[in-house]
């Protein structure tokens, strides 16, 4: 049975380091100036301009947590989480594509790649030459990723992939895609491997970007593989390690999604506070009524609690300690707290909140994904409870 890293065994120091504060402030200034003014247009046009990625690359954001020798900035997991929060506070779509690029498309190579793979794929991704993507979900295998059907068979010095993927963030615009595929059906989950596919490889085709409820600027694609051939050396790690690899990748990804949820929630809270001070009803600002002020108090409390959970998971990651449970708790709580905050922001704005003239409806549409992507709330509750109860059935 997995033992929870209980708080009373944790070192408690809530002070961010000077470096973490500096980084957070820098990303905040960048996001407020470069991302927030474009967020409405990014949502409406369902596109993030190339110039945004170029500016993020110039600032050193695209490879934030990766080693300097691969084009990264080498920051810790806490700083990386703070950066995602600040980006999401300004633009949800950019935050999702960014989190997928760093946490899913690039980090598996940093974690499991060979030196040659790091030079070839991590370096261009980390330096922002291109976006990266991670293809795990399939039409029939979402939460149950062990039921992957995409196959890869070895032919000489090549892997030949066939099958399809679904809901893959950045795929159509990515420089490489890491895809999971069954390399030995007889071994079940232990027969799944991860293979890096460069963009433009013949046989790999993308559907049109999906029409989504929110995070519309972040492009999501279906992929089909029809005899896609890549060199044998594009296998990530060892054959059959794909399942274990992506569980580890998703643990880190959940810290990012938790941070993203906080950013969107904080944006909704700040908009709520401004409106509750300004809007008057029955001769008083609506914030003077408890029905409204209680909503603001709950937003602040829940988002603060969510941030503590997210930063604790990031801290454990930095310490090299297990953090699966804590990342699951952080993502579960943060995504649900954010949804409540964004929902109540619409409530506070009333009719205006339902109008796309104000940003709160966008925050709600954007945050709605976060209880689904990278582990649904239901799967996360299962992960957490199994850590406590063990597998009973």
């Amino acid at each position: 049975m997995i033992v929870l890293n209980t708080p009373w065994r944790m070192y408690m120091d809530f002070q961010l380091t000077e470096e973490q504060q500096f980084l957070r402030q820098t990303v905040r200034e960048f996001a407020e100036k470069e991302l927030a003014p474009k967020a409405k247009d990014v949502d409406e046009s369902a596109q993030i301009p190339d110039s945004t990625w170029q500016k993020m690359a110039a600032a050193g954001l695209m490879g934030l947590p990766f080693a300097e020798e691969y084009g990264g900035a080498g920051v810790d997991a806490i700083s990386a989480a703070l950066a995602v929060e600040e980006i999401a506070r300004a633009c949800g779509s950019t935050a999702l594509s960014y989190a997928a690029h760093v946490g899913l498309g690039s980090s598996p190579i940093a974690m499991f790649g060979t030196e040659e793979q790091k030079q070839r794929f991590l370096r261009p991704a980390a330096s922002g030459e291109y976006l990266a993507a991670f293809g795990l979900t399939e039409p029939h295998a979402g939460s149950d990723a062990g039921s992957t059907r995409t196959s890869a068979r070895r032919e000489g010095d090549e892997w030949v992939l066939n099958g399809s993927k679904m809901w893959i963030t950045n795929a159509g615009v990515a420089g490489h895609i890491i895809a999971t595929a069954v390399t030995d059906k007889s071994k079940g989950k232990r027969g799944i491997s991860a293979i890096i596919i460069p963009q433009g490889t013949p046989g790999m085709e993308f559907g049109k970007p999906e029409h989504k409820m929110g995070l519309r600027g972040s492009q999501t694609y279906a992929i089909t593989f029809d005899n896609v051939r890549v060199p044998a050396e594009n296998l990530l790690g060892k054959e059959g390690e794909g399942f274990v690899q992506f569980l580890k990748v998703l643990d880190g990804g959940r810290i990012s999604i938790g941070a993203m949820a906080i950013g969107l929630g904080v944006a909704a809270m700040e908009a709520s506070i401004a409106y509750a001070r300004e809007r008057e009803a029955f001769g008083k600002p609506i914030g003077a009524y408890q029905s409204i002020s209680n909503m603001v108090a709950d937003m602040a409390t829940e988002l603060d609690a969510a941030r503590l959970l997210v930063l604790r998971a990031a801290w454990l990651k930095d310490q090299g300690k297990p953090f699966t449970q804590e990342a699951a708790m952080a993502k579960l709580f943060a995504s649900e707290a954010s949804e409540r905050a964004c929902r109540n922001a619409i409530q506070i704005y009333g009719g205006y909140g339902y109008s796309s003239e104000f940003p709160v409806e966008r925050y709600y549409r954007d945050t709605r994904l976060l209880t689904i992507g990278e582990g649904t709330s239901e799967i996360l509750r299962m992960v957490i409870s199994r850590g406590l109860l063990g597998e009973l059935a």
Partner: protein
Amino acid sequence: MHAVVCVKQVPEQNSVKINSDTTIDASGITPIINLFDEYAIEEALQWAEKNDGKVTVISLGPDDATDSLKKALAMGANEAILINDDSLGQVGAQGAAKVVAAAIQKLGDVNIVFCGKQSTDDETGQFGPALARFLGWPQLTYVFKVHELTDSQIVVDRALEDTLETVEASLPVVITAVKDLNEPRYPSLLKIRKVSKQPIPTWTLSDLGLSADSLGGTINIAKRTPPPPRPSGEILSGDVQTQVKELVQKLIESQIL
């Protein structure tokens, strides 16, 4: 090329609140790099990169002014120096220029100084010209574009009230930057890591061979008067047609239409 950029840490304008007795409420003030100094930093960095030169940023201020110096280092400056001395609390623009001039002379090999045209807190606009005077160097103020900068010469456009003036000068020289001289870069997140650990040397007056008495008079604010409150608006009455008619009439009277 060794460029010095003079950086002043100032309060972010919308973070300054005035107390009811017209003193300044120091709580909640967000310190930032003076807007015009950011353009000066960027310009120095661009030319240092082209000329394989070096940029040193200098700030005269309290210990927390190192935040602005670290930001300048994370933007790409090579060195930073803080000048801090108990007797500099009330120093005016002239005195500050004298102190910074001594620091630049102490560095020795500096051949160009970039300043903002003024600071957004005191707004005297005296610092750059006074610095040039104490150094005995030419000054190029209100620089809007730098066309050419070598180890011996500079060609710039100065944005004057009703004309754009192209000026050539030999180095060493002091230039003051106007807004939109360039687009200041963001601090590099990679450099932030290094800069956070980089100690910043602090020079005192005695390090510069100066004494408090040699700085001339200080300037004290004798009185502060807040701007008059905005007059309340006028609400038009009557039916919509009357209101619109009256509104148009008033707009014409005010020469808005």
